[in-house]
């Protein structure tokens, strides 16, 4: 597969998940798929993750801000927006809907072999995400140390 074909697979995954079409995962996720960041395995693991996440943020929308590919790897910088309209379940967190509209950003790492995603990982701003949901508060000292961030 060419780099552009691999990028197209990532874009297609994101577009279909934005439409809540989880069936796309049967098509694009390899049986041996692993997601080391969230410890998921196989198409079912990925599907369960999205089903749970989309319950918390039903209008979740991801955009691709930048994308790069080399060999079997595709990385993309993303931005997501969503309204916390249902119970949010993520690792140890159980949070009743707050109605808050949040945005978060990060980079996802994909490895694609023969048109199927075999690995996906993520780096993102979890602290900022939790701050927007009101789970974490900044200290007064933090506000003084980094005034630019609290304009």
């Amino acid at each position, binding site marked *: 597969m060419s780099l552009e074909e691999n990028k197209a697979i990532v874009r297609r995954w994101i577009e279909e998940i934005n439409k809540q079409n989880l069936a796309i995962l049967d098509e694009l996720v390899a049986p041996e798929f692993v997601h080391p960041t969230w410890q998921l395995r196989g198409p079912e693991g990925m599907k369960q993750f999205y089903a749970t996440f989309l319950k918390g943020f039903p209008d979740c929308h991801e955009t691709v801000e*930048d994308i*790069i590919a080399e060999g079997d790897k595709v990385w993309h*910088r993303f931005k997501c927006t969503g309204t916390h309209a249902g119970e949010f379940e993520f690792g140890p967190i159980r949070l009743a809907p707050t109605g808050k509209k949040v945005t978060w*950003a*990060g980079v996802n790492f994909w490895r694609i072999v023969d048109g199927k995603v075999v690995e996906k990982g993520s780096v993102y701003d979890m*602290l*900022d995400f939790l*701050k927007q949901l009101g789970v974490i508060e900044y*200290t007064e000292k933090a506000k003084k140390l980094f005034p630019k961030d609290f304009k």
Partner: protein
Amino acid sequence: MSLEKNKAIIRRANEALNKKDLTVIDEFIAPDYVDHTNQLRGRENVKKFYTKAFKDFPDFHRTIEDIIAEGDKVWIRYRFTGTAPSGRKIELTTVSILRIVNGKVVEGWAVPKVVGKNLAIDKSLYE
């Protein structure tokens, strides 16, 4: 410049910064460099940024976990380790996106933003 040459620049710059060698910034950062995430402009502000980082984290160290390149961009996944002013050791993974023209980094993005509110949020690091 080839993709491998661009990656080599980033690897060399990272090694030098791990040794707190700021001269590497004159060598590899363009005078009008723009850091979109930390809103820094120009080489001198990059030096100030690292001077503060080295002061806050005397054992500042970044290990390149993975690096890929396409066109004029290099993307790097780092594992950062350092001891904060409070004495607490921290470890986190970040990604830097750099655009390189004629051997100099002209533009950069970082995900997630490392300094500032992300560290400040964890009061145990600064108190």
